[in-house]
């Protein structure tokens, strides 16, 4: 929790099958949001450094970025999606107000971190990240 009087920010967790991808996307999102104030944590790969999804790392990251305003989790593929859904179904594994975001990982992460850094609530963060799907590239 932040000090009294400070606005609580939504936390962002970035999940990828690759630690390098998750770390880099977190760095990129922070950079593009002007070093935004929102807490961001990467949860990539397995605890032993391999490729894959780790519910343990995801839960740790979510606890680490929780400021009481909710946590938005962005994911890449397959088992990352299922792992977060299964953790949410457990009920007590992730901080209250944790949400799985339906968004592309890179673009969604930038939108989420920028929006969260303004002090927006978790619904607004989710919406901003989801809207990244609407940006056509060709």
């Amino acid at each position, binding site marked *: 929790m932040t000090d009294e009087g400070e606005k609580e920010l939504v936390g962002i967790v970035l999940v990828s099958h690759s630690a390098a991808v998750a770390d880099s996307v977190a760095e990129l999102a922070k950079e593009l949001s002007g070093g935004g104030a929102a807490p961001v944590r990467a949860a990539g790969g397995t605890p032993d450094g391999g490729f894959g999804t*780790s519910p343990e790392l995801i839960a740790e990251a979510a606890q680490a970025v929780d400021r009481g305003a909710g946590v938005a989790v962005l994911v890449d593929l397959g088992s990352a999606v299922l792992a977060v859904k299964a953790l949410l*179904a457990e009920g007590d594994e992730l901080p209250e107000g944790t949400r799985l975001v339906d968004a592309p990982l890179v673009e969604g992460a930038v939108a989420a971190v920028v929006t969260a850094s303004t002090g927006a609530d978790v619904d607004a963060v989710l919406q901003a990240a989801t809207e990244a799907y609407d940006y056509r590239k060709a």
Partner: protein
Amino acid sequence: MSSSEPAVDDVLDTPFFLRWLTAAAASVSREAARLTDLDAAIGDADHGTNMQRGFAAVTEALEKEPPGSPGAALILAGRQLISKVGGASGPLYGTLLRRAGKALGDAERITPQQLADALRAGADAVAQLGGAAAGDKTMLDALFPAVEALGAGAGSFAAAGEAAEKGALATVPMTARKGRASYLGERSAGHQDPGATSSALIIAALAEAAR
């Protein structure tokens, strides 16, 4: 009816569930190489090792904190599978066992019919989590026929095992619509689904536990 078949009014206690999970772990371990070979054809070649690791954690946890009811045993096992299997199979199998365990509540003895209903609830939860249906070339193609047979046969484990095995074989010509294999499209046809195969092993272990 053979001696390994439960009667309609039979009851299954916590030791039965521990025998089942232990037998499932042994079977998955025995067949780990085959599961990985099947996964190498249409997946990322780790299903056997992942399942082996997950079920090893299950048997270890069951010994360390012996559960007091069938439901508690399944919930504990599911928890281990979610965190230890890795890959999509972890959340899916974890959900199957946890949901089945929750459906059993804290009853100390349950009937085969209650087990069939609980596994049906677990399989439905897996379908919802994965957004998959019968015929998508997934573990559900073994689980759905198994729970169907278990319910219809008033708890015939042999019938459930046969139905699961038949269901797993039936995935061979199917085109995958879920998971990593779905990227292969029609090229996934001609290979047996690894998840349906491991599901058949786990269901077959029920008959072993009843012996």
